[in-house]
């Protein structure tokens, strides 16, 4: 039987992070990009918890709380921004937000 070691958790975290990063880079929809950002944050959380369990320490899990708080705040602000942009441009395709071109 395969033993589930710390390495598996790290691999999972990497995969999650990569998917999230690629999502940020490749998706057009702003909400999907936010979701991908959340996924990256969650990957980081997973990593924190894994090493906390491995070290037998609770410092990692405390940091997770911080990360979740920051993620929540950031999402709130970000969604507010998207709603505002949608009100003006009637679209949340980020390719269309290029007024800073120049």
């Amino acid at each position, binding site marked *: 039987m395969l033993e589930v070691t710390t390495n598996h958790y790290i691999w999972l975290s990497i995969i999650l992070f990569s998917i999230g*990063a690629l999502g*940020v*880079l490749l998706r057009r929809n702003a909400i999907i990009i936010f979701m991908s950002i959340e996924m990256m944050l969650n990957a980081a959380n997973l990593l924190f918890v894994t090493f906390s369990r491995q070290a037998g320490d609770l410092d990692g899990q405390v940091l997770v709380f911080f990360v979740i708080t920051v993620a929540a705040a950031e999402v709130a602000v970000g969604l507010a921004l998207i709603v505002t942009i949608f009100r003006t441009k009637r679209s949340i395709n*980020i390719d269309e937000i*290029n*007024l*800073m*071109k*120049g």
Partner: protein
Amino acid sequence: MGIFGLAPLILLFPVIGVLFNGLVGRRFVNSNRSTGEKWSGWFASVMALSAFVIAVLMFLALQGNGFEAQIVHVFDWMHIESAGFTIPWALQVDTLSVTMMLVVTGVGSLIHIYAIGYMHGDPDFSRFFTYLNLFLFFMLILVTGNNYLMLFVGWEGVGLCSFLLIGFWFGRTDAQGQAMNANAARKAFVANRVGDLAMILAMSLLFWTFHTLEFQPLFDGAVEMFESDEMVHFGAFSATLGSVLTAVTALFLMGAAGKSAQIPLHVWLPDAMAGPTPVSALIHAATMVTSGIYLIVRSNVLFEIVRESGALVLGIVSSPDLVAYVGAATALLAGLIAFTQFDIKKVLAYSTVSQLGFMVAAIGMGAYVAGMFHLVTHAFFKALLFLGSGSVIHGMEHGHHDISHGHGDHHDHFDPQDMRTMGGLKDKMRSTFTVYMIGALALAGIPILAGFWSKDEILAHASEHNFVIYVILTLAAICTAFYMGRQLKMVFFGSPRHEAAEHAHESPPVMTTPLWILAGLSVVGGFLNLPFLTEGLAAANDHHAGGMWLALEGWLEHSIEAFHLSEEGIVHLPHTPLVLSPVVAGLSTLLAVGALLLAFYWVYGRRPETAEQPDPLQRTPIWWFAILPLDTLYMGYLIPAFNRLAAWLANSIDERFWHDFVHNNIIRDFFVGFASFASNVLDAKGVDGIVNGAGKVAQGLANVIRQSQTGYARNYALSIFLGTVALLAYFLLMAN
């Protein structure tokens, strides 16, 4: 050095006079006319008298030290080590220069005093005395210099002062509106300049041959070279000493012709009479015109060497003989022209030229002492005559002033100098008449008076050595007596031919006193070289003139080296044992008295009675001389040709070549071309290119970089991501 050390003061006093009158004199005269004139005029005269005192001191000092020449060195003027060229500023006090000093300062002082009266009322009073003192300064440099260059400084200086003084009234114009005085001054200066050119050439030759210009070393060197029969070398070209000195002496003759008004440069002297009379008396009778004579007497060694060597000018005649012939010809020609002149001063001017001819002829024949003797006596009576004529002119002017004040017509062009309007002045101007008579008789050569002794010494010498010259000079002497008789008759005798002459009156004492002094000198001046003074003195001095003692000759022979050289047999000075031949003297007296009487009674006995009547000689061939030979030639042909040449040179070379071609085309075009090159190429393309190029580079760079600003959030996100990856990779790899 003792008293001789005072010699430079003789130059200092006139300089002080120049500075005083030049700087502050005008203020004195303008503030208070009568006292100002006294200050200005008397200061200048006192300076002249002080110079005279110094000259007398030098005379006495020479008596005391055995008549040895003394050189008073003041400072080194020019010194070029590599060429061995040294010209000192030194005064040579010897008997010859002291003679000249005494004449110049003595007669000069008297003329200064006379001029105080003559120039009374002239607006430029102080300027006149500035120039007079300046003239004294230069003339004294001329006679006291111990080298040819110093003599030349004085030479040029007196030429300048002559110009300044002749042209003193430079605004004066004649009836045709021509500038009389200015033209006369310029004519004098140009004629002098021709002589100056000859002088410079002569001095250059002398320096090249002897490497010095100081008199004593030069003459010693010349004698040495002559005795040793050396050839003179000019680089690749060599010549005998005789021919070199012939050239030098001929050039000296040319210089003397310019200064002393000999043919062919005599033309300036009569025109110079336009200047004030004291100027005519001082410069053109007594001093400046005698500088040519002084030059030749000073260079007697050179002339005698030439005579001895037998070298000829252009193969025709030897240089000293040429001098004698030029002098004699001038004497006769000028004497004949004097017959035809109506201006009282012009008669005296031509008389001066004639008498200078006598002196030049004398020194050309080797009678240096006779020439100097005549120079001294002539200074006395010619100055007297000129000052006397000035007195007459003054009287005529005052007479004219008096009558036109009454009648109110000042506008007829009255010439106070025209003898045709004079007459009968012997009653109106007693003093002037008496002294003028003395002067005229002295000039004519009446026995006892000064002119007789000096002129007859010259004639005696000529009769012994050169019969042709003797004849010419005798004829000239006859002319002298004749035209003086004519002048006396026309001016003083008969009855007045114009109202101005009727109202003429005598001149003030400040003018007549110098006249009397000069008259006295004209009477006793002859005793300077009297052939028989005392037996005792004759024996004591055992002189060349066969035991007869001659004061001036004894005095001068200490400076005239030719005498000593002649004794040693190096040269053979044509010396006359007899200075007064009874035959010659008797004949000349007879002829002179005859000519005087002829003029007085026969030719001019009755006529002219009125001013308009023609001169009795006008229908004779003599009147041909009224066209002024040589002068009309110069003014009619030479000067216009020269002017045309000068105008052509000015137009073609100066105007068309230099201005138009070189200046405009070459210089201006080059400059403009360079300027446009600098502005268009260097500035516009070069500098602007660099500056603008920098801007363009920046712009291009910006254009390229701007392309990264797409405005796409995803592009920015990608670059953040890549940056993070790179950073992580770096840290991970570096950690190992």
